[in-house]
């Protein structure tokens, strides 16, 4: 009996270091934020009431969802044909394309964000090409467009990987089978390939959408304060107004939204499938 107990205890012992790290570095700060949101400056629900009573803050929340949804859709539209090409082409082309997706993925996103600062700058290459072609370049930097562009660039690999992981398990002989049964290639694609790729679509969208909700650096650096997202608002409250309590309440809101999406996903698909 004792031997059995010690055996059963061992796996938990092995988990102890990671549990300790998560508790200290992750759970404690979250609990602290939760605590702050109810106590700072006074013990009340005032911080939460403020989110829902000031239209500006609700607009920021709505804007966050709108931008996240836009980035998700753009990522999906760009990534789907790419992932499809990856699985349909030979290993050489697939390898090159996969590397093209993965290399920026490994480059720090701060580096990638700054590179867009250069590219979209008033004296940058895009503006240069436009002037050369005889157009007066519009303002590109510090716009919603630039923020969406930057976030799409950074999150696209996640979408590609999520789609590719599911697509490469689809047996391509089914397409041939469908064609032999009278389906044109277009119909075979829509009736046989697309339905089976949907788990990848859902995975990729959840991944990109939830990551996008909390995106901070890229929209701050490339975007405009008039099109603020929630992470930006939190930063502003902390850094400029030292409104710790309100910032904490906003953070809790963001966390609840993210958890809600993941919970819905878990309810219908199972969270463990998110990682392929």
């Amino acid at each position, binding site marked *: 009996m004792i031997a059995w107990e010690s055996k059963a205890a061992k796996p938990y012992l092995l988990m102890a270091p990671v549990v300790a790290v998560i508790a200290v570095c992750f759970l404690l700060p979250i609990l602290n934020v939760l605590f702050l949101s109810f106590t700072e400056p006074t013990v009340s629900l005032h911080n939460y009431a403020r989110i829902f009573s000031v239209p500006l803050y609700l607009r920021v929340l709505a804007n966050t969802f709108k931008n996240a949804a836009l980035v998700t859709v753009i990522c999906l539209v760009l990534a789907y044909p790419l992932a499809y090409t990856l699985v349909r082409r030979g290993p050489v082309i697939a390898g090159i394309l996969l590397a093209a997706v993965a290399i920026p993925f490994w480059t720090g996103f701060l580096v990638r964000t700054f590179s867009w600062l250069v590219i979209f700058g008033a004296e940058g290459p895009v503006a240069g090409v436009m002037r050369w072609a005889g157009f007066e370049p519009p303002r590109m930097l510090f716009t919603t467009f630039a923020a969406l562009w930057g976030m799409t660039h950074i999150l696209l690999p996640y979408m590609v990987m999520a789609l590719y992981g599911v697509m490469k398990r689809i047996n391509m*002989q089914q397409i041939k*089978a469908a064609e*032999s049964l009278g*389906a044109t290639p277009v119909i075979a694609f829509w009736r046989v390939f697309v339905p089976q790729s949907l788990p990848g679509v859902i995975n990729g969208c959840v991944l990109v959408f939830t990551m996008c909700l909390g995106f901070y650096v890229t929209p701050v650096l490339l975007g405009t304060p008039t099109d603020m997202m929630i992470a930006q608002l939190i930063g502003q409250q902390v850094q400029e107004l030292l409104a710790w309590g309100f910032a904490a309440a906003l953070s809790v809101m963001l966390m609840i939204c993210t958890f809600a999406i993941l919970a819905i996903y878990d309810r219908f698909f199972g969270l463990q499938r998110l990682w392929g």
Partner: protein
Amino acid sequence: MTTPYIELTNVVRSYDGRTRAVDGINLSVAKGEFITFLGPSGSGKTTTLMMLAGFEEPDSGGIMLAGNDITHVRSWKRNIGVVFQNYALFPHMTVRKNVAFPLEMRKVDAATIGSKTTEALALVGLTDFAERYPTQLSGGQQQRVALARGLVFEPDVLLLDEPLGALDKNLREHMQVELKRIHREVGITMIYVTHDQSEAMTMSDRVVVFRGGKIEQVGKPIELYDRPKTRFVAEFIGDSNILDLSSVNQHEGWVEHQSIGRIKVQHFNPSPSTEPRYLLVRPEELVTLPDGVEPPDNSFTIEIGTIIHYGNESVMIGSIPGTDVSLRVRVSARAGRDLPDRGLIRVGWSATNGYVV
């Protein structure tokens, strides 16, 4: 054979522009025939099937089906059913939806789809499984779904690409019987690809033996077994004893082997394609000769090497002392158990049982 239903004329297909996967195939198939393409991997049998299905296009040559030139017709415009080795069922559709798919593609009305699908599922014995998904079925059941799906739209021909390759032995034999039953009931022309010669022997009306992109021989299974045109066919189909011959005298009815001398033979390949020539004697044609038994036309003493007991029969492998000639003798299970483990034994065969390839 009556007028050909399917006709391949000088069909050539190369993947790299140099080596030919299919190298000038000519073949006629009658309506309702069960034809098997038999050959080792890389012999061109699957490529030929893929060209019939429309997944591959010949570099040259032509394919006719029911009087129409289908050489360059896309696969979805041909009326041909294909059953794949890995089944290629649609995992996101129920069995019923899978079988209904080709009918939906043909814009058949819903009532007809319902009745035809039910009928096809009954034909393969899967009536009770219509609402299941393919992953909930065994390999054999999945294969039946693939069959029902390939037959339900009444195609001109059903192509089967090693359909039983992934099944275990007992199930495979069961499915062979099933396939033959379905072939009889439906009366459809079937072209079946396999590298398993016993499958080809038991199921086919005719067998096409492929080798190196060419057709080695076409014939009824028993013809291929008894009268192979080449050494390759003799070795590929069934178990065989093959002796290299140094000379052949068809007129006097004997052949000569370098180390064991003259052998009497009655049957000769009328149009031999190769030199040197070979003598084929099937292991079941050899008999052991106890003392005092009148020897047949040819008899030799062999030294017993190995005896393999299969349960229902045994095969003795021995060599003629002082030569490099090894002979396989098939005996009954009972006789196999009574054979000594080693020692010398006389074996022989009559002149009618050899065939000079």
